[in-house]
């Protein structure tokens, strides 16, 4: 065993022994994982548990449609998924082309396009203020306190429901 490895082994052993002196830590299962995003020039957050994939620069095929928020179709693992503009669904004017697509968890399949991915964060549950949206049509459920400021949380199932209402049809929600 080289001196470097021996030193490393001794350090690991010392760290292990010291761990018995520090207070026991419980697994933090109260943390909530979020994606901090920007849509329509505003800061929002998405619950990671309500998503099933994040994709940059995904080609979207436009469709002739009367629904302004529907950007078109994109393929995910052989499945064609409608892509809606999150900024439009949130009531912001549609500006430049969104770069990011997030795949909604559950069914029916749906992707949301947004402009900016700020970061992925895990926050303690108390930092998330739950709340129903301001009205039945609202996609925003609650707020999260982040170091760069408070952000409204976009509820993905509610956003899917809104998109389907805009498209003139309803689907039973299947959340994962």
């Amino acid at each position, binding site marked *: 065993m080289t001196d470097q490895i021996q030193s490393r082994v001794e350090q690991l052993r010392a760290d292990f*022994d010291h761990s*018995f*002196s*520090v*207070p*026991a830590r419980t697994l933090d299962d109260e943390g909530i994982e979020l994606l901090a995003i920007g849509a329509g020039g505003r800061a929002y957050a998405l619950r990671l548990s309500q998503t099933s994939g994040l994709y940059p620069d995904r080609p979207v095929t436009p469709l002739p449609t009367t629904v302004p928020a529907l950007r078109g179709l994109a393929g995910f693992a052989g499945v064609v998924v409608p892509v809606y503009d999150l900024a439009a669904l949130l009531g912001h004017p549609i500006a430049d082309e969104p770069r990011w697509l997030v795949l909604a968890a559950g069914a029916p399949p749906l992707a949301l396009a947004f402009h900016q991915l700020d970061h992925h964060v895990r926050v303690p549950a108390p930092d998330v203020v739950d709340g129903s949206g301001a009205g039945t049509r609202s996609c925003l459920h609650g707020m999260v306190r982040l170091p760069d400021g408070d952000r409204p949380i976009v509820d993905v199932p509610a956003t899917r429901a809104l998109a389907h209402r805009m498209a003139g049809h309803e689907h039973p929600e299947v959340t994962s």
Partner: protein
Amino acid sequence: MGQHGQTLAPALDAGVLALVFRAGPLYCALPLDEVVETMRPLPTRPLAGTPPYVRGLTILRGEPSPVIDVTRLLTGTTSEIDRYVAVRAGRGPVACATGPVLGVRLVEATPPDGPSTLFTGASRSLVAAVGTVGTEPLLVLRSIRTVPDEVWELAARDAVTGGAA
């Protein structure tokens, strides 16, 4: 004669599941439901004015805890400390300083009659029964009740003042 580190054959009779270890020349066992964990010896601060079998205070999982030298308590002699065994006691966890931990096995625990009546004082309150490991005596210990109140008070004071590592 048992050897350090030897594999212990399971007892034939159903008994108490216990952690078996050496304490100097003795084989000892602690009921497993009283054992929290085992570890290599941690830094321990001696305490003046306590019985010889109290090695001092250590920090277990953030809590100042008394350290009992089991060999010193049972035999009056000292021997090399190989492990600390954290056990649940009435007023908090206690670290038992022991020789090598040999493993977990079923031990036959009999009422504290016969040889165990030879023990007096602190050791008597600790020894629940005497069994055997092969041809060697095995002391089955019970809940640690041998920590003097003043040690617990010092530990509590240590907790309030931030303790020593």
